[in-house]
């Protein structure tokens, strides 16, 4: 964590995911709220996620949200002044949390889109 060079990437990726999210969240909101005048039903959602392009977009959104949100949280916590050891523990904790969220989210998306072959 104390190593140089690490923080540049963290910052750049935060900026990049931020810009990406503006686009992806906009698409997400349009699809969910505005495409059909009202919220989507289960069938609508399943249809959307069965489309590989949409699936990829939503997974990108998922990953971007996880990174941007958790790295943002990390910045907030680091702003409070952590020791190098504390910062390292924080990184691991956030990484584990992010991985769990990603696994859960991917499972959810694949499941609703029928990609797991259960239905």
């Amino acid at each position: 964590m104390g190593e140089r060079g690490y923080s540049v990437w963290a910052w750049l990726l935060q900026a990049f995911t931020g810009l990406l999210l503006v686009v992806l969240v906009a698409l997400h909101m349009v699809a969910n709220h505005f495409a059909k005048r009202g919220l989507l039903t289960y069938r609508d959602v399943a249809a959307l996620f069965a489309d590989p392009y949409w699936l990829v977009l939503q997974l990108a959104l998922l990953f971007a949200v996880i990174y941007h949100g958790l790295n943002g949280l990390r910045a907030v916590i680091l702003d409070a002044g952590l020791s190098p050891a504390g910062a390292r523990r924080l990184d691991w904790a956030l990484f584990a949390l992010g991985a769990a969220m990603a696994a859960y989210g991917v499972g959810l998306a694949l499941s609703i889109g029928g990609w797991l072959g259960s239905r």
Partner: protein
Amino acid sequence: MAEVELTVRVLRGPARASAAGGRYETYTLRADAGWSLLDVLEALQAGPAPDLMYRHSCHHASCGTCALRVDGRERLACLTTVGQIAAGRLGERTGHGKDYRLPRGARAAVTLEPLRSFPVLGDLAADFAEFFGKLDAVEADLVAARGEEATHFEHCITCGACMSACPIVASDLEYLGPAPLALALRGLQDPTKTGSDARRLAAADQPHGVWRCHHVFECTAACPAGVDPGQALMELRARLVRRRLGWREGARR
């Protein structure tokens, strides 16, 4: 010059870890509108508060010792005049050389507190030891002015106003903060001076360097020397990003 009946609330107290923990003492005195706050403090010292502690040296915004918080905002005491306070014009850089056309028998009140995020030597005197340590980390030096450009980072008088205004300096004790980072960039820009550029870049790139900045720009707003440390920080970060991406630095003079 007009006389003003000035009520001064001063946050006083012994040496302590931060401005918090003192107590407010209130003094009332008759002050000339042309007096600076340093004149006011000297008058208090000569009268009701003989052991009042505050820092001052050059009295013309060059030494950077007399920064304090005036009604919550960082100001140099030497540039802040009684007339300016009475006229409610603390947004102006200096109150000297101005006639605020105060009415006869004008009254004003002002609250003085030491800089935020600094240990206190006593009363209004901030202890700059920790701050100076950060200047040391970037090998800051007084750098001669060269020509007239929009922003002169060498004009930094290390008064600590930006450090006090920055919310992150308050919470991350290791964060280098605006002035040291602005001076790191100045050191990198100045080809005539000694000091290690590698050390400056390393200091700026560590987790408590530029990456802790969240673009609040209170440093720039608080700077009494027109240095714009916020801009310096952004340029320094852009430099680190370009370097990491392997882009060549623009033409080096």
